[in-house]
């Protein structure tokens, strides 16, 4: 799925940087189109509704990519959004998108690491992270960070790839290890357990395997289309890749791989009315770049 080979032996830091870089390449844009995660903006809207977002609230988008979700949340749900990502060119595109839509007063983007979020405690009403939790090398730490920046009673919305590695086709298992989003995907129950460990309780958990199936289908068709129109070859072994996409489609059909929408909440503190303020940008090591 990426031009660079992400090998299992890469260290966590290399993997994170690699993963962010991979999502910035044209090859990925070609295969995934506008929608960088299964379910596209339709599933994003569903997630936003499950979070019960209200105008004026402040939302953090972790691994925000080129900003489609952040802009959608601001435009359609009237919230303020801070997006963090490790990919600087994705962030540049995200800022351009927000500026183009005159949202730059409400949507800001920062270089930041999910495992060390550059924000103070308890400043967000909601955290969203789409198709990204599975790629974080230290998931427990990322979960703890989500809980930390969330206000009491706030919610985290995650959509992510699920994978039952014990039932994975051996041929695909080899490849899965080298594809960022599959390398460390877990069953939905494990995600829930990781979140429960930091005090985040399940509010909604619903499977959207059809969204993953549709995305694999789109990738397969884009590859085949490229094979049809590329007169001088596509630069890689199309047949081999198409065998992998077919195996991936089978894995989804057999419920070995899937896609899950989860909303978890931080328990409410004693009932007080807290003033809504924009999160203050911290000066942690990851927060080199501020918003506009």
């Amino acid at each position, binding site marked *: 799925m990426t031009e660079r080979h992400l090998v299992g032996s890469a260290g966590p830091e290399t993997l994170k940087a690699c993963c962010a870089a991979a999502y910035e390449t044209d090859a990925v844009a070609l295969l995934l189109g506008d929608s960088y995660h299964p379910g596209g903006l339709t599933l994003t809207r569903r997630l936003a509704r499950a979070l019960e977002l209200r105008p004026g609230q402040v939302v953090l988008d972790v691994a925000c990519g080129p900003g489609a979700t952040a802009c959608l949340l601001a435009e*359609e749900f009237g919230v303020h959004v801070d997006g963090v990502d490790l990919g600087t060119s994705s962030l540049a595109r995200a800022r351009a998108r927000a500026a183009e839509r005159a949202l730059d007063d409400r949507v800001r983007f920062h270089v930041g690491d999910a495992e060390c979020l550059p924000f103070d405690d308890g400043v967000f009403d909601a955290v969203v992270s789409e198709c990204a939790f599975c790629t974080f090398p230290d998931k427990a730490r990322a979960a703890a960070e989500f809980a930390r920046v969330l206000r009491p009673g706030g919610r985290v919305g995650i959509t992510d790839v699920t994978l039952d590695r014990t039932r994975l086709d051996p041929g695909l298992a080899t490849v899965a290890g080298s594809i960022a989003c599959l390398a460390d995907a877990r069953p939905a129950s494990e995600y829930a357990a990781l979140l429960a460990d930091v005090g985040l309780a399940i509010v909604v958990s619903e499977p959207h395997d059809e969204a993953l199936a549709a995305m694999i289908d789109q990738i397969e*068709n*884009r590859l085949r*289309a490229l094979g*049809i*129109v590329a*007169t*001088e070859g596509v630069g890689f072994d199309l047949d081999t890749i198409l065998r992998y996409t077919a195996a991936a489609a089978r894995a989804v059909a057999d419920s070995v791989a899937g896609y899950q929408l989860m909303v978890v909440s931080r328990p409410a503190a004693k009932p007080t009315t807290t003033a809504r303020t924009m999160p203050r940008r911290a000066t942690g090591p990851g927060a080199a770049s501020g918003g506009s």
Partner: protein
Amino acid sequence: MTNADLPRQKVDRAEVFIEYTKSICPVCKVVVDARVHVRENKVFLWKRCREHGSFEALLYSDAELYFDSLRFNKPGTIPLETQTAVERGCPLDCGLCPDHQQHSCLGSIEVNTACNLDWPVCFADSGHQPDGFSLTLAHVESALDAFIAAEGDPEVVMFSGGEPTIHPHIVEFVQLATDKGIGLVTLNTNGIRLAHDRRFVAALAAIDPKPRIYLQFDGLEEATHHKIRGRDLRAAKAAALDHCAEFGLTVILVPAVERGVNEHEIGPIVRFGMAHPAVKGVAFQPVTHSGRHVPFDPTQRVTNADVIHALADQLPEWFRVSDFVPVPCCFPTCRSITYALVDGDQVVPLTRLIDVEAYLDYITNRVMPNPDVRQALEKLWSASAFAGSRPTDAHFDRLGCAACGIDRPAVLDALAEKVFMIVTQDFQDAYTLNVKQLMKCCVEEITPDGRIIPFCAYNSVGYREQVREELSGTAVPTLVPNSVELQPVLITTRYGSKTVADGNGTRPASRDSTNVGKGLR
């Protein structure tokens, strides 16, 4: 205990009532109120004429698809000029009148009534007839000028008939339309002259840009040809296609699909077309029960949904029902289109590469990711799109960049070249006519007197008979659909079509049978 002792029970209707609209009586053509309802997942139009009783016709054989299609509807464009005033109300003021909701994507000019065949199925009721008409260059010029005045920059003009290729001046007509700057000129033909007259094909191909060929092509089996066209024309079709390939004329195959005749050939026709170098697409048309046709049951007719399901069933390795997206410029239940990239056995529908539905849904979709992509898709999903033509190829190039991430010029050239188009277009007849759809029609008949009449009104309301009578100088009876239920009252006209015994001279009345011009008190 007898039945008389039981309490009377209310019962439910068999149908779900959907809406109230207007239609015409298929016999006398008077305007009547009509209802649309759903029964057993099928959509029907029901109406009642004071004189001729009630009628029901199938509109769409998959209610779920019908309702899903309604969101693919966009605001109409107002033409630069209209030709008539609103006097009697739709559909009696054609046209176009200022109430019409859309401009014209395609204008058709029928140049004659003569045909080198006398087929059992012909919506234009043409054939070897002594009393028809043949347009002059002056007629065609005035029709073109009216179209240009209305559209400014017309997208498509189609020459039809009769059989337009046997008109002695057809090449001049095509040249004239081209000289007047029409974006795309197409010729709607049975292909017989293309098969037997290479010099004629060469003359057409010498016009720049080359006209495009709409070739009637009902199937690959002998039995299909006999049932629809009265003789086996397979050799002629093959020769016509080969001549078109030889001279670089691109072709859209146009199968008329009739229940129980050639539904099973829908997949094979697409497969055949993809393999032929001249063919850039297939435009399926459920048989229009206007003009001349075989007896039919209006509640069992073929609809767009049947064509789409048949394609998905017969070519499951290539197509799904969801690959077909309704066209938003006309009323969305009238026409659905898909495009595919084709290279031998490799077929990739465009809908798998781009979320076409998200771009063409004007009702429920609130956020538009990319206006350039929508504009290109609007042009591809319209009645003026014709795969293999310069304007349509250009829209594909724009899409290639914006939506697929492909931006190398060499690749884009290959992209347009490998595009195949599949259309299904259900024209309305006197049974199915729904003014709601008619008011948004964008496929029109241009008449020499400068009117621009929606094609389905032209065929079913009485305009065709009116124009033929004016141009030929002979009386033309009002045509009545050859339906099974009307057989007892039908008589055959001298053209092979049907009318009723007292039908001669019957004209659309301006008076509705209900709800016109009167209050309760």
